[in-house]
């Protein structure tokens, strides 16, 4: 009998995320684990290196809280919604402290994680060639990217980007069993490679389901559960972002964060209310419904557009 890995976000973060760790934060806009992110902030983790092809407000919140020293990514911004002010304050003014970033491209970061997931040392790409991302490095120096003439004689030089193998990764997903065989659908973002590249993985999910549910549709499983060290059940764990089949993007809440985080004081007030002022995701949800009403909450919920199932028979 396998041992259940289901635990609270509090236990998972305190047990598996150490100060100074290199951490991949999975997904692209959709299914980002805000529940784990907020717990990292509440536990005041320090000196983290955070890695992902692209980051949004979850990274901004960790930067503002002083958890982050280094970023390996291509992007820290809130898309069409606007800039992220903690990131800008840290990069421009060293508030709350100076942080460093190694700038790659979205594809370069994705293939760095692919290389990490396959156990190969680097990948040659067209991306980054001729850009200043080649000329400037923050801490990796010569080991950020190298140019190499194709040894097979095409006559073209490529940028070699190194594999990335973070100590730990975390991600939000639709469902997992107790052993950590988790499944995602919709926009997969940097998954499955980002999480496969990590030594250990924490997954937070909308629902913990039986192993039997997973086994009925195994093509949807992101990685084998043996890599997963903790499964956290966190309905609405990706709010204010979306989770396909569960809820949509909370545009108003994203704009609220951007508006309030324009000043340090505004940002602190937001965080006191929505991160430090709640013990866990259950309290966060309760606070959300108390503040914005049940109707707003219900409006976020996804309608049923279930797919037809496939026959796995033999």
């Amino acid at each position, binding site marked *: 009998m396998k041992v259940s890995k289901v635990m609270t976000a509090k236990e998972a973060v305190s047990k598996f995320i150490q100060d100074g760790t290199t951490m991949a934060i999975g997904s692209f806009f959709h299914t980002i684990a805000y529940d784990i992110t907020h717990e990292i902030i509440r536990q005041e983790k320090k000196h983290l290196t955070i890695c992902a092809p692209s980051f949004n407000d979850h990274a901004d919140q960790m930067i503002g809280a002083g958890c982050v020293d280094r970023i390996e990514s291509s992007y820290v911004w809130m898309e069409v919604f606007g800039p992220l002010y903690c990131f800008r304050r840290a990069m421009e003014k060293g508030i709350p402290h100076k942080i460093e970033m190694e700038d790659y491209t979205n594809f370069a970061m994705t293939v760095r994680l692919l290389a990490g997931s396959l156990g190969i040392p680097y990948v040659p790409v067209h991306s980054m060639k001729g*850009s200043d991302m080649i000329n400037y490095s923050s801490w990796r120096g010569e080991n950020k990217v190298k140019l190499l003439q194709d040894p097979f004689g095409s006559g073209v030089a490529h940028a070699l980007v190194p594999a990335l193998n973070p100590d730990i990764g975390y991600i939000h997903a639709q469902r997992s069993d107790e052993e950590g065989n988790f499944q995602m659908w919709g926009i997969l973002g940097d998954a499955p490679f980002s999480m496969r590249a990590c030594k250990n993985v924490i997954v937070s999910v909308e629902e913990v389901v039986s192993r039997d549910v997973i086994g009925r549709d195994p093509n949807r499983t992101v990685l084998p559960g043996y890599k997963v060290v903790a499964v956290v059940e966190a309905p609405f764990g990706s709010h204010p972002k979306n989770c396909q089949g569960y809820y949509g993007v909370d545009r108003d809440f994203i704009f609220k964060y951007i508006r309030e985080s324009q000043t340090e004081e505004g940002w602190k007030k937001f965080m006191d209310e929505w991160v430090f002022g709640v013990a866990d995701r259950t309290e966060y949800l309760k606070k959300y419904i108390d503040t914005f009403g049940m109707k707003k909450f219900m409006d976020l919920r996804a309608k049923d557009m279930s797919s037809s199932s496939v026959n796995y028979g033999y």
Partner: protein
Amino acid sequence: MTNEYDDFTLQELMAVSAAREIKDGEKVIIGTGLPLLGAFLAQKTHAPNMIAIYESGAIDCKPVVTPLSVADAVLVPGAAMQGGLMEALGLVHKGELDVGFLGGAQIDKYGNLNAHVIGDYYKPKVRFAGSGGSNDIGAGCKRTIVMMLHQKQRFPEKVDFVTTPGYFGGAGQRDKMGFPGGGPSVVVSTMGILRFHRETKEMYLESYYPGVTIEQIIASTGWNLMIADDVKETEHPSPELIRILREEIDPTGVFLKKQ
């Protein structure tokens, strides 16, 4: 009788201008905002066989509701294929896509784009988002459409930081890199339409928007901008295109602010 769609806003003109750049049957990687409106307008009019691809991995998607972000869940149901970054940017990197959209904080004379910093890289005066997929799209797509706010500080002779190379310092330089993609073909700015000289690869003004003068465009550009011999006013969008934009593509006015 005046038609309520006779009039158009700057944003609508830019969306229409972007749409005109897309040919039927092309594979296009699009972002949110104006590129999205332009691409869907093309698909609803002259380019019904366009294949819309999002960075988030939604391929040949036909959303019934306007997506608010490149990773909006409305993109997924009805798409021909849904993957992740690897599936979308992999197609870009391989050189299979015809058109990509780009933007940034600065663009220079040869179409090089900056989306990183104003000032020193290590101690920036302003720090921006970074490349995201823009460098990848610039390297891989057969051609790119750049959409830019036309201001002097955003159109310097040389960008502070090259995020996405255009034609580097001019003729022949891009070819040496071996990119699958051909570089920027047009800049749809907030003042007019600019292209790149066939031989020198220097940017020039092709047409100016109604109400904008060539002098104003020159004054808003950080180098001595070349003007096409046959420079003219940008073609006005037909009322039908404006109707489709307002009523079918962005009926709630998410991107096109209601006048």
